[in-house]
């Protein structure tokens, strides 16, 4: 039985020797994807992709009365590309990838300069929420 899940990879670290922490690169199941949010800074369009927390998956924190929040990956877009352009392209690419046997989808990699959409300029911050203890 084939695994139908797709897994999305991101890397914001351009130097491979420095790719050694959770905010340098990450991998999420597509089933953890929670949504896109359009953001912008200094005229550069950005899209934030949210995923169900990797380290607090379905978790809770009653010790510190803390919160469980989504992880997020910021995608910076090329000049002239809009969040809608990117989301439309991303949706097409996800549908193609879902029907492929290869379930590892390299969405954006600032080291190898490989991007699944021509609208992507680079990966911004990767935010993997810390584990509560």
């Amino acid at each position, binding site marked *: 039985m084939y695994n139908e*899940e797709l897994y999305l990879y991101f890397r914001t670290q351009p130097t491979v020797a420095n790719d050694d922490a*959770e905010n340098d690169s990450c991998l999420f199941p597509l089933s953890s994807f929670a949504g896109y949010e359009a953001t912008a800074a200094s005229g550069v369009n950005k899209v934030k992709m949210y995923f169900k927390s990797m380290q607090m998956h379905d978790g809770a924190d009653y010790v510190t009365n803390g919160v469980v929040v989504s992880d997020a990956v910021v995608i910076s877009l090329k000049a002239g590309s809009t969040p809608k352009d990117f989301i439309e392209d991303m949706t097409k690419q996800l549908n193609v990838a879902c029907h492929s046997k290869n379930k590892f989808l390299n969405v954006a990699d600032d080291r190898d300069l490989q991007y699944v959409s021509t609208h992507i300029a680079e990966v911004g911050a990767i935010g993997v929420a810390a584990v509560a203890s």
Partner: protein
Amino acid sequence: MENKFVYIRAVAAVGDDDAVTVDSACYPLSSFSGAAPSDDGKLSLFFKSMTNYDGFDNTGDAVVHSDEVVLNFLPVNTHKEVMEGVINAFSSDRDGMIVLGDDVTGEYCFSEITSVESIDVSAVNS
């Protein structure tokens, strides 16, 4: 995906395989929640908590967080390649148990994986 399970064993001697927190564990693949680097030659894989699955704790004011499996690999800083190798194993047409890493038999799902560093299964809340 419902028929796939991920097996990990972090002890080198089968006679020591007797505790869930560090020795061995098995998860439904559907509990896999993501992966990220944890050091130059270490990759952390996270799974939905085995012992507090969909749980909460209002009595002990405890936390519910993911379980963590750490794999060692060489060459260092090839996290992307190891992640891809792991996903290829997850996505193979094999049914049943996928051996992510087994330090007793030396079986690993990807050639760059050298050993299982740790298995952190959260204690059950009470």
